[in-house]
Protein backbone atom coordinates (compact mmCIF):
# COMPACT_ATOMS: atom_id res chain seq x y z
CA UNK A 1 0.00 0.00 0.00
CA UNK A 2 1.50 3.30 -1.06
CA UNK A 3 1.30 6.56 0.89
CA UNK A 4 -1.32 8.04 -1.44
CA UNK A 5 -3.64 5.03 -1.61
CA UNK A 6 -7.16 5.34 -0.10
CA UNK A 7 -6.61 8.85 1.28
CA UNK A 8 -9.05 11.13 -0.63
CA UNK A 9 -12.77 11.64 -1.05
CA UNK A 10 -14.25 10.38 -4.30
CA UNK A 11 -14.78 12.79 -7.19
CA UNK A 12 -14.17 13.50 -10.84
CA UNK A 13 -10.60 14.70 -10.36
CA UNK A 14 -9.74 11.75 -8.19
CA UNK A 15 -11.08 9.34 -10.79
CA UNK A 16 -9.03 10.89 -13.57
CA UNK A 17 -5.96 11.06 -11.40
CA UNK A 18 -6.48 7.42 -10.51
CA UNK A 19 -6.38 6.50 -14.16
CA UNK A 20 -3.17 8.42 -14.75
CA UNK A 21 -1.42 7.10 -11.64
CA UNK A 22 -2.39 3.52 -12.32
CA UNK A 23 -1.44 3.82 -15.99
CA UNK A 24 2.01 4.95 -14.95
CA UNK A 25 2.40 2.35 -12.22
CA UNK A 26 1.18 -0.69 -14.08
CA UNK A 27 3.33 0.00 -17.13
CA UNK A 28 6.56 0.35 -15.19
CA UNK A 29 6.67 -2.58 -12.80
CA UNK A 30 10.39 -3.00 -12.37
CA UNK A 31 11.28 -6.45 -11.10
CA UNK A 32 14.24 -7.30 -8.95
CA UNK A 33 17.09 -9.39 -10.37
CA UNK A 34 16.46 -12.30 -8.07
CA UNK A 35 16.55 -15.92 -9.11
CA UNK A 36 16.74 -18.83 -6.70
CA UNK A 37 16.54 -21.97 -8.84
CA UNK A 38 15.48 -23.35 -12.20
CA UNK A 39 12.45 -21.01 -12.45
CA UNK A 40 14.97 -18.20 -12.84
CA UNK A 41 15.97 -19.70 -16.20
CA UNK A 42 12.40 -19.24 -17.41
CA UNK A 43 12.38 -15.76 -15.92
CA UNK A 44 15.53 -14.95 -17.91
CA UNK A 45 13.88 -16.32 -21.05
CA UNK A 46 10.91 -14.08 -20.32
CA UNK A 47 13.25 -11.14 -20.12
CA UNK A 48 15.04 -12.03 -23.35
CA UNK A 49 14.03 -11.09 -26.88
CA UNK A 50 11.73 -13.98 -27.77
CA UNK A 51 9.17 -13.34 -25.03
CA UNK A 52 10.31 -9.85 -24.10
CA UNK A 53 8.79 -8.83 -20.79
CA UNK A 54 9.77 -5.26 -21.70
CA UNK A 55 6.63 -5.09 -23.85
CA UNK A 56 4.80 -4.73 -20.54
CA UNK A 57 7.24 -2.18 -19.15
CA UNK A 58 8.65 -4.72 -16.73
CA UNK A 59 11.96 -5.38 -18.45
CA UNK A 60 14.13 -3.19 -16.27
CA UNK A 61 15.48 -5.82 -13.90
CA UNK A 62 16.97 -3.79 -11.07
CA UNK A 63 20.04 -5.03 -9.26
CA UNK A 64 18.89 -3.64 -5.93
CA UNK A 65 15.65 -3.97 -3.96
CA UNK A 66 15.67 -0.19 -3.39
CA UNK A 67 14.76 0.45 -7.02
CA UNK A 68 12.35 -2.41 -7.66
CA UNK A 69 8.57 -2.70 -7.43
CA UNK A 70 8.18 -6.41 -7.97
CA UNK A 71 9.90 -9.38 -6.42
CA UNK A 72 9.51 -12.47 -8.61
CA UNK A 73 10.39 -15.28 -6.24
CA UNK A 74 11.65 -17.63 -8.92
CA UNK A 75 12.69 -20.91 -7.36
CA UNK A 76 12.88 -23.05 -4.26
CA UNK A 77 13.01 -21.04 -1.05
CA UNK A 78 14.98 -22.83 1.65
CA UNK A 79 14.80 -21.99 5.34
CA UNK A 80 18.30 -20.59 5.05
CA UNK A 81 17.20 -18.32 2.21
CA UNK A 82 13.87 -17.32 3.79
CA UNK A 83 15.39 -14.71 6.09
CA UNK A 84 17.15 -13.15 3.09
CA UNK A 85 13.92 -13.13 1.08
CA UNK A 86 12.15 -11.40 3.95
CA UNK A 87 14.94 -8.83 4.30
CA UNK A 88 14.93 -8.07 0.58
CA UNK A 89 11.17 -7.63 0.71
CA UNK A 90 11.47 -5.14 3.57
CA UNK A 91 14.17 -3.24 1.66
CA UNK A 92 11.84 -2.61 -1.28
CA UNK A 93 10.02 0.74 -1.29
CA UNK A 94 6.21 0.89 -1.35
CA UNK A 95 4.22 0.11 -3.43
CA UNK A 96 5.72 -3.35 -3.73
CA UNK A 97 4.43 -6.59 -5.11
CA UNK A 98 5.47 -10.21 -4.83
CA UNK A 99 4.93 -12.85 -7.44
CA UNK A 100 5.33 -16.50 -6.41
CA UNK A 101 6.65 -18.26 -9.50
CA UNK A 102 6.55 -22.03 -9.73
CA UNK A 103 5.37 -24.92 -7.59
CA UNK A 104 8.13 -24.61 -4.96
CA UNK A 105 7.31 -21.05 -4.02
CA UNK A 106 3.57 -21.66 -4.07
CA UNK A 107 3.56 -24.57 -1.66
CA UNK A 108 6.82 -26.46 -1.49
CA UNK A 109 6.20 -28.25 -4.78
CA UNK A 110 8.11 -31.50 -5.21
CA UNK A 111 9.80 -30.84 -1.86
CA UNK A 112 6.55 -30.63 0.04
CA UNK A 113 6.78 -34.01 1.70
CA UNK A 114 10.45 -34.90 1.90
CA UNK A 115 12.18 -31.54 1.59
CA UNK A 116 13.37 -31.00 5.13
CA UNK A 117 14.91 -27.64 4.23
CA UNK A 118 12.24 -26.15 1.91
CA UNK A 119 9.73 -23.53 3.04
CA UNK A 120 6.27 -24.85 2.25
CA UNK A 121 5.25 -21.79 0.28
CA UNK A 122 6.84 -18.35 0.20
CA UNK A 123 3.57 -16.85 1.50
CA UNK A 124 4.69 -18.10 4.91
CA UNK A 125 7.52 -15.57 4.67
CA UNK A 126 6.26 -12.61 2.63
CA UNK A 127 2.74 -11.64 1.40
CA UNK A 128 2.15 -12.78 -2.17
CA UNK A 129 0.06 -10.95 -4.78
CA UNK A 130 0.10 -13.32 -7.73
CA UNK A 131 0.74 -17.06 -7.90
CA UNK A 132 2.09 -18.45 -11.17
CA UNK A 133 1.82 -22.26 -11.16
CA UNK A 134 4.06 -24.57 -13.16
CA UNK A 135 7.26 -26.49 -12.70
CA UNK A 136 8.73 -24.31 -14.01
CA UNK A 137 6.07 -22.05 -15.58
CA UNK A 138 6.52 -21.23 -19.23
CA UNK A 139 7.39 -17.63 -20.03
CA UNK A 140 3.86 -17.12 -21.30
CA UNK A 141 2.59 -18.08 -17.84
CA UNK A 142 4.87 -15.54 -16.20
CA UNK A 143 3.63 -12.87 -18.61
CA UNK A 144 0.07 -13.87 -17.74
CA UNK A 145 0.93 -13.48 -14.07
CA UNK A 146 2.33 -10.04 -14.80
CA UNK A 147 -0.88 -9.08 -16.58
CA UNK A 148 -2.93 -10.26 -13.59
CA UNK A 149 -0.74 -8.05 -11.41
CA UNK A 150 -1.42 -5.16 -13.80
CA UNK A 151 -5.16 -5.85 -13.43
CA UNK A 152 -4.70 -5.63 -9.69
CA UNK A 153 -2.93 -2.27 -9.95
CA UNK A 154 -5.54 -1.01 -12.44
CA UNK A 155 -8.20 -1.26 -9.74
CA UNK A 156 -6.25 0.67 -7.14
CA UNK A 157 -7.62 4.07 -6.17
CA UNK A 158 -6.57 7.03 -4.10
CA UNK A 159 -10.22 7.44 -3.05
CA UNK A 160 -11.32 6.16 0.32
CA UNK A 161 -12.84 2.73 0.10
CA UNK A 162 -15.89 1.79 2.21
CA UNK A 163 -13.58 -0.22 4.50
CA UNK A 164 -11.34 2.78 5.13
CA UNK A 165 -14.39 4.98 5.81
CA UNK A 166 -15.80 2.47 8.25
CA UNK A 167 -12.48 2.35 10.08
CA UNK A 168 -12.36 6.17 10.24
CA UNK A 169 -15.90 6.24 11.64
CA UNK A 170 -14.91 3.86 14.40
CA UNK A 171 -11.89 5.99 15.24
CA UNK A 172 -13.80 9.31 15.36
CA UNK A 173 -16.71 8.00 17.43
CA UNK A 174 -14.46 6.26 19.91
Amino acid sequence: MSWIQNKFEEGLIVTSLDWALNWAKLNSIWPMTFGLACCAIEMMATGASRFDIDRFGAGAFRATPRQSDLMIVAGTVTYKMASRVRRLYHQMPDPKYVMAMGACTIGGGPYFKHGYHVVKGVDLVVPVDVYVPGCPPRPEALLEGLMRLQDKIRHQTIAKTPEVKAKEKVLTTA
Partner: protein
Amino acid sequence: MTPEQIAETLKAEFDGAVVDAIMSGGHPSVVIAAERWHEVALFLRDDPRLRINFLRCISGIDWLERGEIEAVYDLQSLRPAGPGELWSGDNDVAVRVRVPREGGHIPSVADVWPAADWHERELYDMFGVVFDNHPDLRRILCPDDWVGHPLRKDYEHPLEYHGIPGTTEFGQKSPRH
Protein backbone atom coordinates in the same frame (compact mmCIF):
# COMPACT_ATOMS: atom_id res chain seq x y z
CA MET B 1 46.73 -51.45 -10.97
CA THR B 2 43.43 -53.23 -10.60
CA PRO B 3 41.41 -52.83 -7.40
CA GLU B 4 42.38 -56.38 -6.41
CA GLN B 5 46.06 -55.54 -6.70
CA ILE B 6 45.57 -52.33 -4.72
CA ALA B 7 43.82 -54.31 -1.97
CA GLU B 8 46.70 -56.82 -1.92
CA THR B 9 49.27 -54.02 -1.78
CA LEU B 10 47.48 -52.40 1.14
CA LYS B 11 47.19 -55.72 2.97
CA ALA B 12 50.94 -56.26 2.51
CA GLU B 13 51.89 -52.73 3.59
CA PHE B 14 49.54 -52.23 6.52
CA ASP B 15 49.03 -55.06 8.93
CA GLY B 16 45.40 -55.18 10.03
CA ALA B 17 44.33 -51.90 8.43
CA VAL B 18 42.32 -53.58 5.66
CA VAL B 19 39.14 -54.85 7.28
CA ASP B 20 37.53 -56.14 4.12
CA ALA B 21 37.86 -55.98 0.35
CA ILE B 22 34.61 -55.88 -1.64
CA MET B 23 35.55 -56.69 -5.22
CA SER B 24 32.21 -57.92 -6.59
CA GLY B 25 29.84 -55.51 -8.28
CA GLY B 26 30.59 -52.36 -10.19
CA HIS B 27 32.10 -50.43 -7.33
CA PRO B 28 35.15 -52.31 -5.99
CA SER B 29 36.20 -50.99 -2.63
CA VAL B 30 38.52 -51.59 0.28
CA VAL B 31 37.29 -51.23 3.85
CA ILE B 32 39.89 -49.51 6.00
CA ALA B 33 39.89 -49.29 9.80
CA ALA B 34 39.09 -45.72 10.82
CA GLU B 35 42.10 -45.22 13.06
CA ARG B 36 44.55 -46.25 10.29
CA TRP B 37 42.86 -44.28 7.49
CA HIS B 38 45.13 -41.24 7.49
CA GLU B 39 48.40 -43.15 7.03
CA VAL B 40 46.78 -45.37 4.40
CA ALA B 41 45.63 -42.22 2.56
CA LEU B 42 49.16 -40.81 2.60
CA PHE B 43 50.48 -44.10 1.24
CA LEU B 44 47.87 -44.16 -1.54
CA ARG B 45 48.87 -40.66 -2.60
CA ASP B 46 52.65 -40.94 -2.32
CA ASP B 47 53.48 -44.52 -3.31
CA PRO B 48 55.13 -44.43 -6.77
CA ARG B 49 53.09 -47.44 -7.92
CA LEU B 50 49.78 -45.83 -7.03
CA ARG B 51 50.07 -42.00 -7.04
CA ILE B 52 46.36 -41.61 -6.36
CA ASN B 53 46.14 -37.84 -6.58
CA PHE B 54 42.44 -37.29 -7.20
CA LEU B 55 39.65 -37.61 -4.65
CA ARG B 56 36.53 -37.59 -6.76
CA CYS B 57 33.86 -37.72 -4.14
CA ILE B 58 33.05 -38.66 -0.57
CA SER B 59 29.64 -40.22 -0.04
CA GLY B 60 27.95 -41.16 3.19
CA ILE B 61 25.75 -44.15 3.97
CA ASP B 62 23.69 -44.53 7.11
CA TRP B 63 23.38 -48.21 8.06
CA LEU B 64 20.66 -47.84 10.66
CA GLU B 65 20.31 -51.56 11.46
CA ARG B 66 24.05 -52.09 11.89
CA GLY B 67 24.40 -48.84 13.83
CA GLU B 68 27.14 -47.67 11.50
CA ILE B 69 27.86 -44.73 9.28
CA GLU B 70 30.07 -45.39 6.31
CA ALA B 71 32.13 -42.85 4.38
CA VAL B 72 32.93 -43.87 0.82
CA TYR B 73 35.95 -42.20 -0.77
CA ASP B 74 36.16 -42.50 -4.56
CA LEU B 75 39.80 -42.30 -5.56
CA GLN B 76 41.65 -42.17 -8.83
CA SER B 77 45.11 -41.52 -10.17
CA LEU B 78 45.18 -38.90 -12.90
CA ARG B 79 48.18 -38.49 -15.16
CA PRO B 80 49.10 -38.23 -18.83
CA ALA B 81 49.51 -41.63 -20.50
CA GLY B 82 52.78 -40.43 -22.05
CA PRO B 83 54.61 -37.23 -22.95
CA GLY B 84 52.19 -34.96 -24.78
CA GLU B 85 49.32 -37.41 -24.33
CA LEU B 86 45.90 -36.74 -22.90
CA TRP B 87 45.37 -37.17 -19.20
CA SER B 88 43.59 -40.31 -18.17
CA GLY B 89 42.47 -42.00 -15.00
CA ASP B 90 44.04 -45.09 -13.52
CA ASN B 91 44.10 -47.00 -10.22
CA ASP B 92 40.37 -46.54 -9.64
CA VAL B 93 39.39 -47.72 -6.20
CA ALA B 94 36.93 -46.80 -3.49
CA VAL B 95 37.75 -46.76 0.19
CA ARG B 96 35.09 -47.35 2.82
CA VAL B 97 35.56 -46.24 6.42
CA ARG B 98 32.97 -47.44 8.93
CA VAL B 99 32.34 -45.78 12.28
CA PRO B 100 29.55 -46.11 14.87
CA ARG B 101 26.51 -43.86 14.32
CA GLU B 102 26.87 -42.18 17.69
CA GLY B 103 30.19 -40.52 18.47
CA GLY B 104 31.92 -41.71 15.32
CA HIS B 105 35.30 -40.18 14.54
CA ILE B 106 37.18 -40.36 11.24
CA PRO B 107 40.62 -38.81 10.77
CA SER B 108 40.45 -36.01 8.25
CA VAL B 109 42.29 -36.41 4.96
CA ALA B 110 41.94 -32.73 4.02
CA ASP B 111 45.74 -32.38 4.31
CA VAL B 112 46.20 -35.31 1.90
CA TRP B 113 43.66 -34.26 -0.73
CA PRO B 114 42.45 -30.64 -0.34
CA ALA B 115 39.20 -31.62 -2.07
CA ALA B 116 38.30 -33.54 1.08
CA ASP B 117 37.85 -30.30 3.03
CA TRP B 118 34.36 -29.39 1.79
CA HIS B 119 33.31 -33.00 1.25
CA GLU B 120 34.04 -33.82 4.87
CA ARG B 121 32.14 -30.73 5.97
CA GLU B 122 29.19 -31.95 3.94
CA LEU B 123 29.40 -35.38 5.52
CA TYR B 124 29.53 -33.79 8.95
CA ASP B 125 26.54 -31.60 8.06
CA MET B 126 24.40 -34.41 6.66
CA PHE B 127 25.44 -37.37 8.85
CA GLY B 128 27.05 -35.94 11.96
CA VAL B 129 30.37 -37.70 11.56
CA VAL B 130 33.18 -35.80 13.26
CA PHE B 131 36.43 -35.52 11.31
CA ASP B 132 39.48 -35.23 13.55
CA ASN B 133 42.11 -32.61 12.63
CA HIS B 134 39.84 -31.00 10.05
CA PRO B 135 40.91 -27.36 9.42
CA ASP B 136 37.38 -25.89 9.61
CA LEU B 137 34.68 -28.35 10.60
CA ARG B 138 31.44 -26.36 10.27
CA ARG B 139 28.15 -27.08 8.57
CA ILE B 140 28.44 -26.33 4.85
CA LEU B 141 24.84 -26.48 3.52
CA CYS B 142 22.45 -26.12 6.44
CA PRO B 143 22.40 -22.96 8.57
CA ASP B 144 24.73 -22.95 11.57
CA ASP B 145 21.85 -23.25 14.04
CA TRP B 146 20.22 -26.20 12.28
CA VAL B 147 19.11 -29.05 14.52
CA GLY B 148 20.02 -32.60 13.54
CA HIS B 149 21.70 -34.15 10.53
CA PRO B 150 19.21 -34.42 7.65
CA LEU B 151 20.42 -37.50 5.75
CA ARG B 152 20.31 -39.78 8.79
CA LYS B 153 17.60 -42.39 8.46
CA ASP B 154 15.99 -41.43 11.78
CA TYR B 155 16.01 -37.67 11.09
CA GLU B 156 12.84 -35.78 11.92
CA HIS B 157 11.77 -32.77 9.88
CA PRO B 158 11.68 -29.42 11.68
CA LEU B 159 8.18 -28.25 12.57
CA GLU B 160 9.30 -24.65 12.93
CA TYR B 161 12.37 -22.68 11.89
CA HIS B 162 12.78 -19.03 12.96
CA GLY B 163 9.03 -18.45 13.05
CA ILE B 164 8.36 -20.14 9.70
CA PRO B 165 6.08 -23.13 10.15
CA GLY B 166 7.47 -26.22 8.52
CA THR B 167 5.24 -29.24 8.28
CA THR B 168 4.79 -32.24 6.10
CA GLU B 169 1.07 -32.41 6.81
CA PHE B 170 -1.62 -30.85 4.65
CA GLY B 171 -3.04 -28.82 7.54
CA GLN B 172 -0.63 -25.98 6.96
CA LYS B 173 -0.49 -23.32 9.62
CA SER B 174 -1.64 -19.82 8.76
CA PRO B 175 0.89 -17.37 7.29
CA ARG B 176 2.81 -15.24 9.73
CA HIS B 177 4.23 -12.01 8.36
